[in-house]
């Protein structure tokens, strides 16, 4: 497998060369990648805690996938578009989407309140793999416009079994759509290991559809950055999609509702803990003298400030006004919705404590 896996940074924090993929970030960029990963992990950990405290209904943790998400997201240009599944909190952070939007969704206060056109980061998609087609259709539109924009579709190893993902590969290929299919293979689809989804490595599927596929060490932020950047450049040339399989690991549970001790060995988790994406970049930064103790301490403080902000956002988040469930069902209005809204309003108003039915 090692010969197939693009790696530019070993778990011990040593740089390695690759004949095809290279990246030479400045010290500032290296520190930026590290900062993004640390902030993403802190946001994630705080959200898990808030779920345990009953403040969030659910949270799908990204723990272990920071390099895959930050590396790929940092490869995007501002005008590029990202279509996430529901675990791409790191990508959202890089795209500068206010965490309040993600937290509202998992608190049960919204179903996705951000404007996709504002940060070119589309709505989370909970039905597995559906967004691969949206990304492909978007990219087909980009191709018609002749625009210098690339699209990235995020999905996981479980989604690779979905028909929509297969259809996205076909549509992307036959219309030469500028889309990168970025699969975070985190080895587990809730309780099902990859043996339940595939019999051949995922990245080898791509040539069958007529476009290149590559497997990258998903815990190596430099390799993820380099490979995604190359993939985005490739699709920008108009020669069709590219597939990137980021080989990584879901260190936590599928979501806060899941109990992975029922189906996987702790030894496997330990093995991957040694490949931690943040630790290896820290080792590089320290070895090459790009960051000192004071810098790391300042970053920790910034991460704590983010956590405090996350807590503040969630604890002060109001429940939506019940009337809003009738809003935006249709863009142009609908007689039935109008009738039901009016009836509901009258019902609400019939209570002495008008406005609250409970």
């Amino acid at each position, binding site marked *: 497998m090692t010969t197939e896996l693009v790696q530019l940074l070993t778990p011990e924090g040593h740089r390695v060369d690759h004949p095809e993929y290279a990246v030479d970030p400045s010290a500032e960029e290296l520190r930026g990648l590290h900062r993004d990963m640390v902030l993403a992990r802190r946001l994630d950990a705080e959200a898990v805690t808030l779920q345990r405290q009953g403040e969030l209904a659910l949270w799908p943790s990204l723990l272990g996938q920071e390099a895959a998400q930050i590396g790929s997201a940092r490869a995007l240009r501002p005008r590029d578009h990202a279509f996430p599944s529901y675990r791409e909190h790191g990508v959202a952070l890089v795209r500068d989407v206010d965490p309040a939007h993600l937290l509202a969704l998992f608190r049960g206060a919204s179903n996705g309140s951000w404007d996709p056109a504002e940060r070119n980061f589309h709505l989370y998609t909970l039905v597995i793999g559906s967004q691969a*087609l*949206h*990304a492909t259709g*978007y*990219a087909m539109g980009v191709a018609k416009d002749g625009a210098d924009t690339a699209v990235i579709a995020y999905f996981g190893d479980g989604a690779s079994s979905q*028909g929509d993902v297969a*259809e996205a590969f076909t*549509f992307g290929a*036959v*219309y030469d759509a500028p889309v990168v299919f970025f699969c975070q293979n985190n080895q587990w689809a809730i309780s099902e290991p990859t043996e339940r989804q595939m019999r051949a490595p995922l990245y080898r599927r791509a040539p069958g559809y007529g476009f290149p596929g590559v497997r990258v060490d998903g815990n190596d932020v430099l390799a993820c950055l380099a490979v995604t950047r190359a993939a985005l450049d490739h699709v920008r040339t108009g020669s069709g999609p590219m597939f990137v399989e980021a080989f990584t690991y879901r260190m936590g549970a599928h979501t806060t509702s899941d109990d992975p001790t029922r189906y996987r060995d702790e030894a496997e988790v330990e093995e991957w803990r040694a490949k931690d994406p943040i630790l290896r970049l820290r080792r590089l930064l320290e070895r090459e003298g790009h960051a000192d103790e004071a810098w790391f301490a300042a970053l920790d403080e910034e991460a704590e400030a983010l956590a405090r902000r996350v807590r503040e956002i969630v604890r002060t988040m109001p429940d939506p006004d019940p009337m809003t469930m009738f809003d935006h069902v249709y863009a142009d209005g609908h007689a039935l919705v109008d009738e039901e809204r009016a009836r509901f309003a009258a019902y609400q108003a019939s209570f002495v404590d008008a406005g609250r039915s409970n």
Partner: protein
Amino acid sequence: MVTKSLPVAKALNEALRAALEADPKVLLMGEDIGKLGGVFRVTDGLQKDFGESRVMDSPLAESGIVGTAIGLALRGYRPVVEIQFDGFVFPAYDQIVTQLAKMHARSQGKVRLPVVIRIPYGGGIGAVEHHSESPEALFAHVAGLRIVSPSTSSDAYWMLRQAIRSDDPVIFFEPKRRYWDKGEVTLPDSGSAAGDAPPGELHEARVARAGTDLTLAAYGPMVKVCLQAAVAAEEEGKSIEVLDLRSMSPIDFDTIQTSVEKTGRLVVVHEAPVFYGAGAEIAARITERSFHHLEAPVLRVGGYHAPYPPARLEEEYLPGLDRVLDAVDRSLAY
């Protein structure tokens, strides 16, 4: 403006042509719609005139067609996609129900998905299985979708133009057995805004024939059958009002109510199975609205709770003239 006698299929073709001319963001996509012009020739000649980039033959994958149409709409396009036959829409059902219908609401109004899904539907053409179904109720149950079906050439033209202009997703059910029925259509001049105004609202029901004794409410292919039933009933001295509902979501209950409060009797007719069908919803709502005006329970005539039968049996399955008249008699007997 010019008034022409056109078959329904040709009226749809003219509507697509006019939409492609009027708005560069309008795109057509579907299986065999390009070079072939569609299996019913509704898109005949359009790829030749507008090019492969705007009239796209798609891979044979319905979920892919609707899913990429969503992506194209997110990019600012107005895709009009064709599902080749009613029974082939189900691979796309997930994209339609969980994505297309909900994204406007999920984004709190920030995303608009002006996607039209054209589906030739219904029986009566002696087809093999999965080619004669009427699944409209399965879509009308989903908030966020608009569901319409024309019954005449004029409505075929104008309702499709209106559907394409809508900022909401519209499922446009085309009565395939009426594709070759001719009717008058007043077409606006090409490239001119003059006369480019539709004769009515997209979701308004139409009184297809006035009457005083009983109301027949139908849409799509069944309007013609109901009009024939009204003619036959007239010979027996019964005055039947026929409503062409035109829209299944929303339903123009006001027009039905006005008619029922005049006639006191209502029979709803559709090809789709009666169980959980549009007739059930109409019966419930009209009973609520017009309880004291009703002289008889609202009756329904439609398909049975059985898979659509082999074509040799479809005349027994589909509501024909006799079954509609039987329901008329039963209602009047109360």
